[in-house]
């Protein structure tokens, strides 16, 4: 047997799950879809003494809009996002990202919240949600706190989550009526991590960019926001010149490294191309609303 031994808990409420985490502290791990955690345990990169399986907790598999927020429960699978009409209509960057994550069988189990908590710099949800201005609701025994994704990702596989806390909901502000988004990903084959991916979400007001979110996957120690590119767009029309400049700035913000998937130079250029395509697609989708 590959993984080290662990005690298995299948709580039926978040409170019960938290009490196990309190007891085991950083020797416990939370299990949702398991599509990242179980491979780590098999390699013994992770050897938790206790595993807290959230799958028996009711209500965490919901995906809905409420009070100006899209809410994605901790047990919402990639597959549910892939099939969501709500995401397809209003959250282009999320709807595009979902079917590009890993492969269809992994998407049956893997979760959005779990991907964020895993914080792989090559993870797709991090960038798609950063572009959309996302945040996480985190439960601990002291109550709930909200962490913006900008503050959540600290580095490779490292987040602001305490060992005694659980990501219960992922939230994205509802986009205004005039907005659009897209996610472009380059992968060598289905199921591979991104060589490069770029998430874009733009909201418009009076024909100009009100807010632009641009985030990069696979070209840094965490999912990166291309802030200079975002700022350059704010208040401007999304014309060819603005798109070209934003794409150039996004490429500059990337911190790519040479590896088997490509040279740093190549990846930086893909960031430029995908930012341009993403912005054009976002504009096109706005028109259709």
């Amino acid at each position: 047997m590959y993984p080290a031994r662990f005690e298995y808990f299948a709580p039926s409420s978040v409170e019960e799950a938290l009490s196990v985490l309190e007891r085991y502290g950083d020797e416990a791990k939370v299990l949702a879809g398991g599509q990242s955690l179980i491979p780590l345990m098999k390699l013994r990169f992770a050897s938790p003494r206790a595993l807290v399986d959230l799958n028996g907790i009711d209500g965490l598999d919901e995906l809905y809009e409420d009070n100006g927020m899209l809410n994605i429960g901790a047990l919402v699978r990639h597959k549910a996002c892939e099939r969501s009409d709500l995401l397809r209509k209003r959250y282009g960057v999320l709807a595009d990202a979902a079917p590009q994550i890993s492969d269809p069988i992994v998407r049956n189990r893997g979760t959005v919240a779990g991907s964020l908590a895993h914080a792989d710099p090559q993870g797709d949800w991090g960038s798609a949600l950063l572009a959309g201005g996302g945040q996480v609701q985190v439960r601990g025994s002291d109550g709930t706190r909200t962490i913006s994704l900008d503050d959540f990702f600290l580095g490779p596989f490292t987040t602001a989550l305490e060992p005694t806390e659980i990501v219960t909901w992922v939230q994205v502000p509802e986009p205004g009526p005039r907005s659009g988004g897209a996610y472009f990903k380059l992968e060598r084959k289905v199921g591979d991590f991104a060589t490069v991916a770029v998430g874009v979400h733009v909201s418009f007001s009076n024909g100009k960019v009100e807010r632009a979110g641009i985030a990069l996957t696979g070209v840094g120690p965490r999912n990166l926001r291309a802030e200079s590119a975002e700022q350059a767009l704010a208040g401007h029309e999304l014309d060819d010149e603005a798109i070209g400049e934003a794409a150039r700035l996004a490429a500059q913000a990337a911190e790519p490294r040479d590896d088997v998937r490509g040279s740093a130079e190549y990846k930086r250029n893909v960031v430029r191309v995908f930012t341009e395509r993403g912005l054009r697609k976002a504009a096109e989708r706005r028109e259709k609303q």
Partner: protein
Amino acid sequence: MTETATEQAVYTKQLNVTVNGQARSAAIETRLLLVHFLRETLGLTGTHIGCDTTSCGACTVLVDGTPVKSCTCFAVQTEGSEITTVEGLAPAGGLHPVQEGFHEEHGLQCGFCTPGMMLTATALLAENPNPSETEIRWALSGNICRCTGYQNIVKAVQYAAAKMREGS
């Protein structure tokens, strides 16, 4: 140092599942992967271990009708579930339409990926009785055939789809 029974007990669970229509119960270690439970505890070796890294899909089984890579799921997670392995596909004395399709269209060469391919295809057809070629290829994209025999695998699924529509 020998372990006490209590120490061992915390790492053990009684698992109750239905496998291929049959109720099964076993005391298992919590760290036992579903694929090892099926192959070693139950002796159902039709489920293959390919890459063992969540990539190839050879170990795919259906858990409550949904394809799952059984190398990336602890057996304890399936408590109360209905599991279908390749051994559970065929009705008594016959072949499942998907199996017949793989037979008729030569949908396998070495056969190693076949159980996973067939289970993924079965789940696809349960949901979408008339998939396009693109939909079939998309659905099977988490299952790798090392012989690269995809052409005939797709044909086999198309055969099964037609056969199942005829029969329904």
